[in-house]
């Protein structure tokens, strides 16, 4: 049976066998793990947000990549930049600021387990 093969598949014919057979080898590639934020407190919690774009806006705005339905969160509150393996967060001139592990920051490179607070929304960052 003819079957379209993906670039990850190669076919090996075995003419030496008594009954001609072929073996299809499929390379099982590991999908790269992506960092993510888990909303652990605040409106909408719990919820997981995979950081799958180079730049993602977190804010109250429905058009934000990560929407937090809270009046205390600015429409465009923070920008998450992913230049893997490095992920950073930058305050977008928000009203209530960005807090990293309890300290108000303008920007920061994120590390596994960091707690990020945007007003009443609290996230935990996971590198993968």
């Amino acid at each position, binding site marked *: 049976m003819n079957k379209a093969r993906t670039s990850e598949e190669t076919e090996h014919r075995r003419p030496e066998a008594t009954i001609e057979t072929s073996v299809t080898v499929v390379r099982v590639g590991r999908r790269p793990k992506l960092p993510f934020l888990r909303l652990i407190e605040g409106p909408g919690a719990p919820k997981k947000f995979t950081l799958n774009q180079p730049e993602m806006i977190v804010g109250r705005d429905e058009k934000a990549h990560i929407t937090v339905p809270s009046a205390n969160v600015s429409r465009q509150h923070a920008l998450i930049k992913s230049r893997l393996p490095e992920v*950073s967060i930058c*305050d977008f001139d928000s009203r209530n600021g960005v807090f*990293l*592990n*309890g*300290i*108000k*920051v*303008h*920007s*920061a*490179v994120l*590390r596994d387990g960091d707690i990020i607070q945007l007003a009443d929304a609290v996230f935990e960052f996971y590198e993968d």
Partner: protein
Amino acid sequence: MPIYVKFWGTRGSIPTPGDRTRKYGGNTSCVEIRCGNHLFICDAGSGIRELGSDLVARSKAPIVGHLFFSHAHWDHIQGFPFFAPADTAGNRFLIYGAKQGDDRFYDLLSGQMKSDYFPIGFGALRAEIIADHLDDGSKKIGSVLVESFPLNHPGGCLGYAFSSGARKIVYATDNEIEVLSSQPESDGEAKLRIVQPALVEFVRGVDLLIADGQYTDLEYRSKKGWGHTSCLTVVDLAVQAAVKQLAIFHHDPSHADSFVDEIIESCRSRVKKLGSDLIVFAAREGIELEFREQ
């Protein structure tokens, strides 16, 4: 005009890369301070290499920077030969001595690039590098007043204050704070360690004090005279001076991230016992703070 402070290197003594130091970073001392168009760089430990790469990426116009050195021990100058903007024509860097005629830092920076130590000579760098000086310990650069203050470290050391409007940042690393008097602690109650009044005045009321807190009390007992301080003594200095935020800096190379976390917990516990609202945190590579006009 807001002041921005970014940590590029927070480790003391020697670069310490690896998983154990990933959170707070393994690069040696380098802090960037920006106010308007003015760029100030405190120390050129190995962290200045990443700062240089970032400056090249974000700067379109020629880069002008003002470099202030606490002292010339290796971990504060070793990154300079790898500071890419110093090798770009059109850029200009001013290296400050404490007073007129004090070219010590300029001479030591050029000295570490002699051929015995490094393949590219200081004179071959394409940026303009100028020996400048504070005027008897202070100078106005743009809207920023820079002041220096002597610290207690073998061979001498300087702390620097950067003030703009009502905002003030102090960089004071490699400083063994002398405790003038302290009462024994009892029943879990902390007794404030009284420190040098002139140092208290230099840091009084600052928005951010970046200070050497390399040791625990226990470690300090066997390292007296090495020029560094117990983190709890730095807390007491900050409390006495009504500092708003304290960044514990110059992390010991033997301290893993988890140990730095424990140090910060002990500092916060002491702040609480002293009845203060001081904010304490560990200086960490990649963190940038903003201090807006009040």
